[in-house]
């Protein structure tokens, strides 16, 4: 299955540069330019590397104490259906239940400034989780979304060791209730999928970004990193952004401003 994850590497480019409009040439052919799908339709052709999905987090807009994105993710993907197994410790369970997105609060050691941000799978272009997975269950889709093929995951958890962002969760308990759009079961690893079921139905949105907007914070912009006129690239062009653990050179699909 690896060939499918290969294609993105060819289109590899520093996309901070892209955000500044430097690599316009790479995106120049008109066929790459596209408008958001207006008449949403389920896809019939396999995904391609014409898109690379990404997310921009404006930490200055992310509100203290707000968990709208987390809650939305939980409902969207059936994570709210998890329940603590009888007899498990309460705190331990919070570290055992699946969490695809979490609110993180930071304080600058020097200035004391407090920053809030949501942290989820960063959909790395060079994902360490994919490199280490022995069976190839961790993979990167042609459109840049990093996922786990739950049919081949053996639950070795090596990908969790490898991920620098603690983005992945292991399903520690039997799953009784699950949603049709988000299958999940005991013994496999899972993480944020950028609401892939929405994208595949032609709807360019994620539950977290929707929820954040609905709350009026507008801290999350989801979109296509390869679409220079799209909302994501526009937002990226407006302010300098960076990756968490930029030093690792993973070229993440999730970027942060004000960090």
């Amino acid at each position: 299955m690896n060939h499918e994850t290969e294609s993105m590497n060819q289109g590899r480019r520093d996309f901070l540069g892209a955000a500044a409009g430097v690599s316009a040439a790479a995106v120049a052919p008109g066929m790459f330019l596209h408008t958001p799908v207006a008449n949403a339709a389920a896809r019939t052709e396999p995904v391609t590397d014409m898109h690379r999905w990404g997310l921009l987090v404006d930490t200055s807009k992310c509100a203290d104490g707000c968990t709208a994105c987390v809650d939305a993710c939980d409902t969207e993907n059936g994570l709210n259906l998890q329940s603590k197994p009888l007899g498990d410790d309460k705190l331990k369970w919070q570290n055992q239940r699946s969490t695809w997105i979490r609110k993180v609060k930071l304080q600058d050691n020097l200035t004391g400034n407090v920053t809030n941000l949501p942290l989820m799978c960063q959909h790395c272009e060079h994902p360490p989780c994919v490199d280490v997975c022995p069976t190839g269950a961790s993979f990167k889709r042609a459109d840049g979304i990093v996922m786990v093929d739950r049919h081949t995951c053996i639950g070795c958890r090596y990908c969790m060791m490898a991920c620098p962002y603690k983005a992945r969760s292991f399903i520690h308990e039997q799953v009784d209730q699950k949603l049709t759009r988000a299958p999940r079961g005991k013994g496999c690893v899972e993480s944020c999928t950028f609401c892939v079921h929405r994208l595949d139905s032609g709807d360019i949105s994620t539950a977290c970004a929707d929820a954040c907007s609905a709350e009026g914070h507008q801290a999350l912009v989801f979109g296509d990193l390869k679409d220079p006129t799209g909302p994501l690239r526009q937002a990226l062009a407006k302010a300098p952004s960076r990756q968490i653990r930029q030093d690792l050179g993973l070229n993440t699909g999730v970027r942060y401003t004000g960090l």
Partner: protein
Amino acid sequence: MATVMMKGVLLASLVATFGMGVVAQAEEVGDYVLPSSKAASLENCVEPTEYMRRNHFELIRHQRDQTVYGGIRGSDHGISGCVSCHVGYDDKGAPVEIDGKGQFCQSCHEYAAVELNCFDCHATVPTGEAWNHEVAAAHAHLPGAAKTGPTSAER
């Protein structure tokens, strides 16, 4: 594999021991479609019934890779289609888990003594399914802009 074979042997010996009674039941193979399911009102499955009986897993498995790697959902060979069409309903009109005793998938798999583990992960009743293209169309909005209205209604 071993357990499957063992179950097969057991079944064969059962057939031998109980003679006609069991054989009579065996003749009814395939009649596991529940009257309360949507499938009961349809002429055929997504492919001819005889073909589906033997090859449904091939179709599902092929579609599985299409969906996982290619993002092609909503094909009628996907497992969610199986569930939504074949799930039975109780008196109150509530769907019954399809891998439950006597339900469509479970009863045939039990008869054929083939392990059924799709539902370790997949939903056994149609739930939260409705993120299909219709919902998506209704939900269509300018990307990044605020979306109004609760999405829970759509689920």
